[in-house]
């Protein structure tokens, strides 16, 4: 279970996260919604231990990580994985080397076992023949799929997704959303997905949280969000309502 309590982060005098508290149960998919700059991506970096909060605690399966040194955090990080907004693929490595990076670094698997696992992951994201290409030789949608393949290669218990469909065309975005749903269904990983796209949030989220100005303004089931009276939430939801009415007219 992931548990955040009263997390606050300040950067150059500006509050990025302000007293954030929430939990994610094992196997649950939580979607963090909110406008750009609301502090959603910062939350992921705090959970992963990449950023140290100024106040509050982060518990991963009962272990408090905020006071651990970088070195002591490594074993906990190795149970988690992240799909970065800009993919963050290692540009000097091929697609296959990127996917197998963690296994080469931290597992006792033989080269053949790693090769097979990498191929399985590439098959999972429908990139079976792209292993030898460099990241600069593939499209944005393919890069995102490589990032997902890299994230699942070592069978992590927790996957964090930072804006997984942002910047992709609708077809590629749909492919990525389907991949996330497949991972949830077939591997029961605990996931936190940061997005500002409501359609994706409702498609994959067991629970939703809405972030605005570094604070959580809603945390609950998708159905409850639609009835939530907060003016900011209603304003944010107007997009999906407009889309729904457009579809109804068609």
């Amino acid at each position, binding site marked *: 279970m992931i548990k955040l309590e009263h997390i606050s982060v300040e950067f150059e005098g500006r509050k990025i996260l302000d007293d954030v508290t929430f939990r994610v149960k094992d196997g649950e998919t939580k979607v963090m919604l909110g406008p750009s700059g609301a502090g959603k991506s910062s939350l992921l*970096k705090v959970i*992963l231990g*990449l950023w140290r909060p100024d106040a509050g605690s982060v518990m991963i399966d009962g272990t408090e990580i905020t006071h651990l040194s*970088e*070195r002591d955090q*490594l*074993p906990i*990080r*190795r149970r*988690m*994985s*992240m799909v*970065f*907004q*800009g993919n*963050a*693929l*290692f*540009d000097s490595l091929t697609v296959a080397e990127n996917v197998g*990076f*963690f296994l080469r*670094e*931290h597992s006792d698997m033989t080269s053949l076992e790693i090769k097979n696992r990498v191929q399985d992951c590439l098959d999972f994201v429908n990139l079976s023949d792209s292993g030898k290409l460099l990241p600069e030789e593939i499209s944005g949608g393919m890069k995102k799929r490589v990032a997902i393949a890299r994230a699942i290669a070592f069978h992590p218990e927790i996957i964090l997704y930072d804006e997984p469909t942002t910047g992709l065309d609708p077809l590629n975005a749909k492919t990525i959303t389907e991949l996330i749903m497949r991972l949830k269904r077939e591997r029961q990983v605990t996931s936190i997905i940061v997005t500002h796209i409501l359609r994706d949030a409702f498609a994959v989220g067991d629970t939703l949280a809405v972030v605005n100005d570094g604070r959580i303004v809603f945390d609950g089931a998708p159905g409850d969000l639609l009835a939530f009276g907060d003016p900011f939430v209603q304003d944010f939801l107007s997009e999906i309502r407009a889309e729904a009415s457009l579809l109804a007219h068609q």
Partner: protein
Amino acid sequence: MPERMNDIFLLRSFKLSLLRLQEYSLFTFENIRSIGSAWRYRRDTLEQMYIIGAQAFLIVFLAGLFMGIIMSIEAGHRLETFGAKLLVGRTTSLALFRELGPVITGLMLAARTGAKNASELGSMQVSEQIDALRAFGTNPIEKLAVPRLVAALIMFLPLTLVADLVGLLGGMFVSDLWLHVDKAFYWRSAVFDLKVKDLIVGFSKPVIFSFFISTISCYYGLSTTGGTVGVGRAAVNAVVVSSVIVLFNDFIFTKVVWSIL
């Protein structure tokens, strides 16, 4: 009022510099503590040895050659005035081995290796690749900084030796051609008049320089912020600070050596 603002600005800059120094010290300490990881990442270390060492051979060769030639011409003409041009070999070798060889090689490598490390690691930082490494449980200092440090520590010494020897050879041909100093005599006075002390001084400097050039440039690279502009800034800072530190260390080292040896 403007004076007060000026004071506040100076105080802030001073505080920021102190913070930077503290961060750099911690970074350097972490590098030393993790030095054993160079073996774990031996492929990366070997690759860096090739890039930092073998690929820098030509620039060091040329720098050493021209240094030796210029030194011989300058020293030869001055010494000729006193009828002491036969001392040109000894003068050139002393200058090359003790000062010019290590310092010019240090400055060349501060520019080449410093810019390379800072821009490479800076680009990885702004494209979140460093965060990805950390997210996957890999310590960026162990994986990226330590192999660069160890490669520099190993390769700077032979590169300096190359610069020294090529400089001596360049000086020998110039002395023979323009000053009419016999090659064999030049070589004997250049090599056999060198003392162990001179060699200790000359070959200790590259080790110190390589340590600072590598840690400073990796520190600037890994602490890059502000996108592509930040990468450029990190590269410039790495080269400028490394170069100044090379010269400052040379001064301190020379002073200390003269005091104790």
